[in-house]
Every structure is written in structure tokens, then in C-alpha cells.
């Protein structure tokens, strides 16, 4: 039974899908700050040390005045560089603050809406769908479509195109067989990745090693051994078995048929690397690892679905024949979602819910509300005492109708 309370909006739980909207700019603010801080530490240390050295050197005469000037020039260059960097980080920070504020006010609009029947809710919920669709497009790499939709709907502050463009770029470079972009990203986020216990760095280093082995040239293979000593053996304690397999790879050429070496040489590893990268990237930014639209759809399709939506009886009759007096076409029955909803469970109901109450049975087994049948008969210009099936169009005498009792 439709619950009267069901149209009430619970503000606390209604924004589950909107959590990343505020979490992401916050994570990006922190990440931006960390980068600024690292840049500052590096440059300030350099300048502090050089001031000290130059001062010391000039007192005991080891550094000539000309060299003092030279050092001061070096320091100036560093500080000008630092200033540019901080300015860039500061601009990004301002942008993120602006974005966060825009997002909070957007979410806040919901607090003045109390039921889903409010016209303002429809507007709000449409906007949310637009956000979910953009998120979906970005995650599947349909970047142009996402940008076009965001522009069309004027919601650039509410979507995260740049973040996903960046992610897509690195992901694509992995799929194209290059680890460099991903390694650079790993380097930028070393500490955080370690905290997540991500194996991405290890996997990338392993891939580099595998690619060197693949060449089967002796010099490259020697280089591979050096590479392994430097980058792979430190992981010996964490991934002992993998490191052992990697060492074993030396004995096998790319055309081997023996596992696990076949898998190590397999190009499918690139897809796996891309997936590991994506997962780590999303986790680092507190983003869910599946598109929000998937979450919304799997719960929404089930909530709307009824056994009738894929029933043979109901689908025998073409939609075109459905009378306009029958209720509007159900979203699950509509072409857009019908196949998609085929495999989700239907909603659970513990009580009957009938769209009409004065039910009567037609001789063909179909049940309708009496008033609707009468209305349709009148609209179809039928003589008194006759009714017409709203779906099949069959004509019956009203005397043949039987009352139906639903308990």
C-alpha cells in the first residue's frame, strides 16, 4: 500500500547519493594543500640552508662577494618559483572553496522541500539526475558528453570533470601500455597510497620488469635485474610469492605455456593495472568505486518493479492499444528500462495496493474499476448497458460484470 509518509522527504537519509558532492572538494583541498606544503618545504629548506652557508662562507672568506650575489640570485629564483607555485595552489584552493559553497547551497535547497510532491522537488531531483548522469559519463570515459551536458545544464560547479579527465588520461595511458603517467601519480601520492595499502606501485614496477623481459634482449634483461633489485626486492616482505614468481620469469620466454608466467606476460595485465589504478584513485578521493547512477538504478528499478512489468499476460497486448484511461505507461514497462530491469528483483509489498477500488470482473478475466469502464464506454460512444475492455477493446454487456472483493 502506498504509504502516505512515503512522499515525505527525510533530509538525513535523502542525500546518500550526494555524499561525494561535498567529500570530493574537501579531499581535493587537502590534496592541494599537501602539494603546496611539499613545494614549500623543499624550497624553504634550500633557501634556509643556502643563506646559512653563504653567511658562514662569507665570514671566513671562503665565499667571495661575487658568489654571494650569485647565491642570492639562486635564492631569488627559488622564491619566485615558490611564489608562482603557491599562487597556483591558492587559485585552486579558491576555486575549491567556491565549488564547496556552491554545492552546499545546492544541497541546502532541499531543506526547504518537505515532500516529493513539491514542484521544487522535481527541479531538484532532475538536477540530481543530471549530476548522476554526468558522473556516469565521466566514469565510463564519455568525457565530451559529460562536458556538453554540464554546460547545457549550467552546473559546472556541481560536477567534477577535471578530476575524471585526469583519471581517464592516466587510465588510458595504462591501457595503451605505458606506466609512466601512473608512476608519476603514485609518486605524488606516495604516503596516502601507503596508508591505503595499495599495491599499485609494486604492480607498476613489476610491469616495467615484465616489459624488459619481453624484449628477450640480454642487455635489457640485465637492466631488468637491476630494476628488480632497486624497485621490486623492497616488496619482498609484503608480496613474497609474487616477488618469487617475478624472479622465476627470468627462465621463461614470452611464448611460455606455463603458469604463472603466462599470466605475467599476458597483455590482460594492462587492463588489470588500469583497474587497480582506478580503484586506488577513487579511494584516495573518497569516491565510491561504482558509478552513483548504478547505485540509484539498482535500488530504483527494484522499488518500482512489480511482477506485472515483465509478465507475459500484460505484454501480450501492444502498448499502443492501452487506453488513455488506463494509468500512464509504467517506467519499468517503458522501452528505456524494460530490458535493464529484467534481472533485478521486484519490490516487496506486504499489502495489496489497488489503483482502483470499485473492481469488477469482465468475462475475459480482466478486472477494472467500474467507474473507469463506464467513463470509457461513454467516451467511446457505446450504447447504455455495454462496456469495452480498456486494454483489449472487446465489448461486453454490463450485465456480465461481476463484483470482485479484495481482502
Amino acid at each position, binding site marked *: 500500500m502506498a504509504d502516505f509518509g512515503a512522499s515525505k522527504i527525510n533530509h538525513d537519509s535523502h542525500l546518500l547519493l550526494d555524499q561525494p558532492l561535498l567529500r570530493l572538494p574537501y579531499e581535493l583541498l587537502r590534496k592541494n594543500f599537501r602539494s603546496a606544503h611539499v613545494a614549500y618545504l623543499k624550497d624553504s629548506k634550500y633557501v634556509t640552508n643556502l643563506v646559512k652557508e653563504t653567511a658562514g662562507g662569507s665570514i671566513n672568506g671562503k665565499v667571495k662577494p661575487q658568489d654571494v650575489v650569485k647565491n642570492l640570485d639562486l635564492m631569488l629564483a627559488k622564491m619566485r618559483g615558490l611564489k608562482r607555485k603557491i599562487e597556483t595552489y591558492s587559485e585552486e584552493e579558491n576555486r575549491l572553496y567556491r565549488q564547496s559553497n556552491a554545492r552546499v547551497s545546492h544541497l541546502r535547497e532541499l531543506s526547504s522541500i518537505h515532500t516529493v510532491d513539491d514542484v521544487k522537488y522535481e527541479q531538484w*531531483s532532475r538536477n540530481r539526475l543530471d549530476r548522476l548522469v554526468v558522473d556516469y559519463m565521466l566514469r565510463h570515459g564519455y568525457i565530451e558528453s559529460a562536458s556538453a551536458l554540464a554546460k547545457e545544464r549550467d552546473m559546472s560547479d556541481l560536477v567534477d570533470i577535471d578530476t575524471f579527465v585526469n583519471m581517464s588520461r592516466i587510465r588510458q595511458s595504462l591501457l595503451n601500455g605505458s606506466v609512466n603517467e601512473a608512476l608519476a601519480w603514485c609518486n605524488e601520492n606516495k604516503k596516502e597510497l601507503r596508508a591505503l595499502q595499495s599495491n599499485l606501485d609494486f604492480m607498476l614496477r613489476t610491469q616495467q620488469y615484465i616489459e624488459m623481459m619481453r624484449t628477450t634482449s640480454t642487455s635489457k634483461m640485465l637492466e631488468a635485474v637491476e630494476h628488480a633489485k632497486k624497485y621490486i626486492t623492497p616488496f619482498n616482505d609484503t608480496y613474497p610469492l609474487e616477488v618469487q614468481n617475478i624472479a622465476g620469469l627470468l627462465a621463461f620466454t614470452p611464448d611460455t605455456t606455463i603458469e604463472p608466467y603466462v599470466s605475467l606476460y599476458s597483455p590482460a595485465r594492462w587492463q588489470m593495472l588500469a583497474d587497480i589504478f582506478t580503484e586506488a584513485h577513487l579511494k584516495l578521493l573518497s569516491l565510491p568505486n561504482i558509478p552513483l547512477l548504478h547505485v540509484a538504478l539498482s535500488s530504483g528499478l527494484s522499488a518500482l518493479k512489480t511482477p506485472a512489468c515483465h509478465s507475459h499476460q500484460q505484454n501480450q497486448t501492444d502498448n499502443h492499444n492501452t487506453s488513455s484511461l488506463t494509468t500512464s505507461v509504467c517506467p519499468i514497462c517503458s522501452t528505456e528500462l524494460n530490458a535493464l530491469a529484467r534481472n533485478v528483483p521486484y519490490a516487496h509489498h506486504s499489502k495489496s495496493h489497488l489503483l482502483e477500488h470499485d473492481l469488477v470482473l469482465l468475462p475475459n478475466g480482466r478486472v477494472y474499476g467500474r467507474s473507469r469502464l463506464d467513463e470509457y464506454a461513454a467516451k467511446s460512444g457505446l450504447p447504455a448497458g455495454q462496456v469495452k475492455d480498456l486494454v483489449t477493446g472487446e465489448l461486453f454487456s454490463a450485465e456480465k460484470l461481476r463484483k470482485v472483493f479484495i481482502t
Partner: protein
Amino acid sequence: MASEKPKLESLQRDFDEISKLPRLSAAAENVDKIIELLSAAREQVAGALDTHTASSTMIKLQNPVKTAFESIENDLKKASTSHKKMGKALNESFPLKPLPMDHDAMADHVPLINRAIAMHLLREGQFSVASTFLNEVQGQTRREASVDLDDTMDEDGHEHVNPTVSASFSPSDKYNLSESRDLHNHFSEMYRILQHLKAEDLDPAISWAARNSKHLETRGSNLEFELSKLKYVWLFKGPCGPDEKSLHSALAYGRKTFNRFGARHSAEIDKLLGAMVFAHNLPASPYAKTFVTESAFTDIASSFTREFCSLLGLSAESPLYLAATAGSLALPQLMKYTQKTRSKGTEWTTANELAFETPLPESMLYHSIFVCPVSKEQTTDSNPPMMIPCGHVLAKETLTRLCKGTRFKCPYCPSEGLLKDARQIIL
């Protein structure tokens, strides 16, 4: 529930406060200070170029540089404190609740979701975004297909590069494309007609309705008549109230058009033409109501949209919109359930029916639901509702269980019946 409302508001308040707190820009100013110190020192040393000036300048430089760096550090600390405050505000007013991510039922159906999105965009009139999207989807599918062919030689149980899967998708994508071209044409026609309706031009809608007259009639839709009626009223009232000219054209239109609606709508046609007599004093006449057109154009636009979509077998409101909205309404129930089952160690397996209720507002119910009053199960194709002779309805399985031989007693009234007299019904 009222206690939850202020959360979003306090979040907004906190964010307003936080955006006034110190940011990184302060640090940039203090870097300037260091640059000034260094430049001044450089000038001094370069100007004199003697050892004494150099060493004394450098010694004097040490402390101010140190202080300046300390203030930058301070600035950075403050900027970071602002971020921490934001994190705290988020945790307080918008605490992170992990979404159910263990099982993504939609992951295998990307082509179907793409199709739903494309249809949604077309329906919303976003024709250019829709075509960008279809192109991008096509491009990616083609790329993936070619990658798969390269990979077939070392397939080893890796699911993601399965050539058979993507091969079976490509034809459906082609089908999608021609289907979406059709849809594109349909919806651009719909938008063209709606545009005209907005400008109070009924003719394109009328000719569409005339072309689909038969379908509309089988649906029992009055749209065609309603459009003609509005056209008559619109002509009747004329650009500046009813006058001789406007009445004349309305009459001519009525004579030409209403004839074919005679059988079904004679009463209303009588009214429309009868109004001619009262043309000069319409508001006081019994016909006043028929001639109020304020919302008539928006009303007819929405019934036009409904009929247009229904003739295409589509729901009048975007299904994707409805599903996403229903999804956000049902999600809390799903989360509650997954939490409970996880703590008990039982996982929710994909059965036919959800294991928990997901109440939706009345406006989102499209089918009658019949739950057998005895077994409490929803009826399905394999367990359909049966009406027994006394008019009560039970699920088929319930009825079989109630039967003693071929007879049963109704659980709701004193009457008895024979199994053969029970009838399967379609609700």
C-alpha cells in the same frame, strides 16, 4: 524528522564561516617578503662588492629570513586548520555513510544503461548532447571490439576481455543507433509541436492528431477533439475579445471541423456553438467556464506530451528520472537491510523479490499490486490471482493448499466452492 532539517543549515553556516578563514593566499604574501629581503640584500652586496658588506649583509639577512619562513609556516598551518574545520563540519552535519558497493547489479548492463541515457536525453530535448553521447559510445565500443580481437590469443579466464560478449553487444548497438535516430526524429517533432503550442499555435498539434486519429481513438483519447475545441475558442475570442470577425472565423472553423466529432461530443459542440449567442457578454453566460483559456495551453501541452509518448509505447515522464528518484527514496531501506544482514552474516542473494519494503509515494505506483491475504505473497505469472465464486480473490497456490479434494471453503466468508469454478483474473 524536524530535528534533521537544521543539519543542512548548520552545514551551510559552517561553510560560510570557513570560507572567511585564512587561506593559502596569505602565504604567497609572505613569500613576497622574503623576495624583498633577498633583493635588498643582493643590491647591497652587488653594489659594494666587498667582503665586509657581503658578510655583514648575509649575517643580518639570516634572522629576518628565518622569521619570514616562520610566518609562512604559520600561514600554511592556518590554511590547513581551515581545511580541518571543513572536515569536522562535514563529519558532524554530513557524516559519511558507505553506500552498498559490494555487488553492482548494473555493471554488466552498460549498453542498456547507455541506451536509457540516450533516450532520456532525446526525450528532454537535449539533441546535441544525445548525439555527442551516441558518437562517444560508438567510438568506445569500436575501440574495445578491436582490442578484444588482438587479445583473443592469450585469453586466460580474464573476464574483461571476452570477445564473445562484446561481439554480441555490437549488433545491439547498431540497432540502438537506428532506433535512436527514429527516436530523435520523433522527439524533435514533439518539441517542434510543443514550441508551437507555447506560442498558442495549435495547427501543428492538430495535424499530428489528425494523422494519428485512429490510434488516439482506440486509446479513448479526446485529444483531437480537445485541440479542435481550443482552436475554436481561440478563434472565437480573437486577438482582442470576441468581435464580428472572430466569431465569423470561429463559426466557419466549427462548421468545417466539428462535424466528424458529432457522435461522441454532441453535447459539448452544442455548448460551443450556443456560446455564439452570448458572445458579447461571455463572462456572465452559462458558457463562461468553457471559454477560460488561461491554463488551457499548458494543459493541452501536457496531455499532448502524454499521448505522444504513449503512442511510442513510452511513459510520459522520463523513466530514468523516475528510477533515479525512486532509487534515492528506496536507498535508505536498502542500506538498513544490508547492514542488518551483514551483521548477521547472511547475505542478500538476488532473489525474485526484494526482502524488504521500499515505500514509494502514490504517484510512483503504476500497477495494481495484489498480495494474497492468506499467504501474504504477491501474485505472479506462475502464481496468479484467482477469483472464487463468492467474489473473493486468493493466490492460486493458496487455493490449492486450501482444497480438500475438489472443494474448498472461502477463508473470508461462509461460502464454499469448487476448484473448477475459480477463475484466473488479470488485475
